[in-house]
């Protein structure tokens, strides 16, 4: 029996009561007021000083009131638990604009799992009978009817594969490896699905697109519609059972299936397959010198920057941290290991980008706020659906930051980030190209195979699991 939002909130009580309202959580680089940066830049959303601490909570920036910054929400949670405040439309309306990007959690020196708290609050708010905001109610209805929040027909989920000549991979029964495409890449950003599947094909991977794939449930875990999310989870677990490894191109789906599912599955059960993002495979093959990239005249000299999706970046970083805290017997010693693991994790896409710099001739240039301090694109947490104007303004703030480093191409590795950043890029005329890193590799035909990868390569563990695996072997 799954826990209710209120039960989870009560479980998190000690974490909630750790908040001292210091407000460090409103900033990126909250402990580094003297951090060197790129200076002041005036973009489409105003002027930002990219040095030292920078305001980085999108809802706080947009709405200003204390309740919209993270610390305010943690004190709302505390008021709910203590009975000083009841759930109401007013409470819902300050909870829902949070993008659940996790910037606040990354800044917190007491390691408060803020995203878990906010998601539990939202679930408890729903359970208390407070109606969802209209747009969330709509996507909830759509996913219940059609298994995706976009209103796409189930039979058209793999239309992109048929159109791209990749139909043979749909329900490929011989494969041990699955590619979980996700709704955004299936119905909206089909370029992501096509380029990822083509990349797998070029690498010689025998994989399957699972015909019964449904929405991973991410938006519904995020907005507190956990019953809906769990129904979707159960359908996917049934559809993907029997596979050894599932690859992802969507940060949100990857995070949800890897981090959320085990929390919501019956106690003691584990995911029946291994998971990893496609960029982990590409990085590993680069490190093993099995692939390289071809020079490209069109890309040569282009300034390329990278936006860390919250779901593949910070959320995994925070999850590593929380897990290691749980396991640790002496955190004073183990904290260094946590830091090393997080650093290693954030390097994965950067290994690809540096290889592209070396082989193709792009210039990889980092934005000011990166890795754990990366600024969100504004799409997550149900905000793109619920508050589209605010969502796009946030994406435009991120595009400003890319403009500040004179990027020609803003890359990312999540179709949802890509969608939002692309929309902001067009709406506010930021003048860049927005694309996925893997999309760049496929579209510009950059891949050169030096040694054919084997099935063993495709089934190799994600680096996030390597340490755990080596511990087990010891």
């Amino acid at each position, binding site marked *: 029996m799954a826990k209710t939002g209120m039960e989870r909130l009560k479980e998190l009580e000690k*974490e909630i009561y750790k908040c001292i309202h210091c407000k460090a959580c409103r900033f990126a680089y909250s402990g580094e007021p*003297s951090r060197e940066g790129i200076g002041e830049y005036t973009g489409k959303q105003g002027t930002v000083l990219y040095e030292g601490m920078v305001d980085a909570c999108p809802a706080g920036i947009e709405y200003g*009131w204390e309740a919209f910054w993270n610390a305010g929400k943690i*004190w709302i949670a505390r*008021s709910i638990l203590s009975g000083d405040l009841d759930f109401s439309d007013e409470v819902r309306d300050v909870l829902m604009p949070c993008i659940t990007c996790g910037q606040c959690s990354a800044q917190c020196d*007491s390691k408060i799992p803020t995203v878990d708290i906010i998601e539990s609050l939202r679930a408890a708010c729903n359970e208390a009978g407070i109606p969802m905001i209209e747009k969330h109610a709509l996507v909830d209805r759509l996913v219940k009817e059609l298994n995706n929040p976009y209103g796409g027909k189930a039979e058209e989920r793999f239309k992109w594969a048929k159109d791209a000549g990749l139909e043979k991979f749909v329900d490929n029964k011989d494969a041990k490896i699955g590619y979980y495409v996700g709704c955004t890449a299936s119905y909206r950003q089909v370029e992501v699905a096509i380029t990822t599947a083509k990349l797998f094909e070029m690498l010689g991977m025998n994989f399957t697109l699972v015909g019964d794939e449904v929405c991973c449930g991410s938006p519904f875990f995020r907005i507190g519609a956990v019953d809906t999310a769990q129904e979707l989870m159960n359908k996917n677990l049934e559809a993907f059972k029997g596979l050894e490894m599932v690859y992802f191109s969507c940060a949100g789906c990857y995070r949800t299936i890897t981090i959320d599912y085990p929390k919501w599955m019956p106690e003691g059960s584990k995911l029946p397959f291994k998971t990893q993002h496609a960029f982990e495979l590409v990085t590993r093959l680069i490190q093993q010198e099995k692939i390289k990239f071809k020079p490209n005249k069109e890309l040569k000299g282009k300034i390329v920057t990278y936006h860390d999706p919250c779901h593949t970046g910070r959320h995994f970083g925070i999850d590593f941290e929380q897990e290691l805290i749980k396991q640790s017997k002496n955190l004073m010693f183990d904290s260094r290991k946590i830091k090393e693991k997080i650093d290693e994790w954030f390097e994965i896409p950067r290994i690809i980008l540096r290889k592209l710099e070396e082989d193709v001739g792009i210039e990889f240039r980092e934005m000011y706020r990166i890795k754990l301090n990366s600024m969100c694109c504004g799409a997550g947490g149900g905000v793109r659906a619920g508050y589209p104007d605010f969502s796009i303004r946030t994406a435009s703030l991120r595009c400003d930051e890319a403009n500040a480093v004179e990027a020609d191409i803003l890359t990312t590795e999540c179709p949802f980030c890509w969608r939002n950043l692309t929309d902001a890029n067009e709406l506010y005329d930021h003048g860049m190209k927005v694309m996925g890193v893997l999309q760049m590799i496929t579209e510009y035909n950059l891949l050169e195979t030096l040694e054919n990868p084997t099935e063993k390569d495709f089934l190799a563990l994600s680096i996030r699991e390597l340490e755990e695996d080596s511990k087990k072997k010891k």
Partner: protein
Amino acid sequence: MSYKLPDEKDLEAMIGIVGKNYATNNKAITASYLSKSVMGLESQIPDIVVRPKYVEEIRKILLYCSAEKIAVSPISAGLSGGFACPTIKPAGVMLDLGRMNRIIEVDTENRYVVVEPGVTIGELWAYMHKNYPEWAPPVPDGAPPASTVMGDAIDRGFSLYTSSVGPQGDNFMCGEIVFPNGDIVRTGSWALPFAKPFYKYGLGPDIWSFLMGSQGALGVMTKVAVKIYPHPKFKTVVVWGMSNPEDMQNLTLEIGKQEFGIAHNTVMVQGGNYPLVMARWPKDKVPHDYEFYKEMGIPQWWMNWECWAQTQEELDYVVNKINKMAEDFKKNRAKDPDGIKPQELHPKQIASRLKKPNKIAVPYAFWEAGFLFITFYTPWNECAHFAEMYCKAMEDRGFPPVMWIASIERCRQAICMPIICFDSTKQSDFEKVQEMNRETTEYALKQGWLNYRPDPYIHAPLTYSQAGMYWKYLRMMKKMFDPNQIMHPGRLALP
């Protein structure tokens, strides 16, 4: 005293002053301003929150609330981190001054900056670092970067320079205050229309000093001129370890008592005991036994001297002189000579300690779920007595004996801060903390020790009960500034 509970009409009046986007009685928003930790455990959800931007708006709000007898509590922008005075009973209107966040003037010749209440120490530090790297403001060490310059001023607290130059309150030259009668007063030399804020004691008796420590109970401070100091490149940290607080106290006093020379170079002098390191981690995730910390090279007690100098030669002189004095103390006067040892710091440790501002004080909630700073001033040569008394009181109640002590004005005063790490989800822990707070305050007052930031229900009443004449004049003077007594009622046990 009785106060009016603000209603919709009052909200409309506030909206009329600041605009509809900046005044609200939305219950979720008002609840978000609670803060029951670090500096005090009392906090009440305000009835209305208003976010003014301009001095004139504040003047109108205070005039209105005074006429209507509605309580008003100002906060600068930080809640726990800096000026930690959230609304208490009877609630009323909270003024969130976070939108007043301009750094108005920097004068490097007269060495001050003028800021509004919402300017955080992180922002001011970063601004100076970028634009005036040779100058630095007196930011507190440990208070998080989101706490405010103004908050620290009003608390008269501790900062980067307080060992060298004196109490933090002395770093503030002049201020601008709005009183509930609608008057806007500038203090010190600023009282003259064309004067710079260059002299604190300007026109006779000093009003600014009266406002120090007022916790928002007299008026709303809207501007403050803060001293800035040179920020030389030659800096380091010298640390000596000891086995007991008496040796820590006495060695530090020998250095501070010189007053000139190296006593001025040691800008920040602060120390404590090993639980200061231990309690920054979860209770069940670190060893509690001192032997573990000993192996890591952490002394039972220690003192850090943060040394700033204009040249390497000067810095070397200061470091050598401290070390020589420590050796001499160890040889001739220490209670436990074997316990006195220099602590070698790795360059990364030095860099980390020199970093300002920082979040050093934040993770004490990590130990369990919540913490409280209970801070006292003692004469420096009584700080060991204070530490022993308080550590015992904490241990007796099952709290880790976490103690931090810093020098003010070259060891004229000590600022002593036990950090009570407890589980704030448990009512029994809350009660234990408050019982200890009451007992230790009674003991401290008998010794003549003062609270740094008196809380409204224990420290302030106990303190004023022993200072009746002072209390009488405080009340009379508050009445003069705040005739209907609307400013932060109860905060200083004043109506």
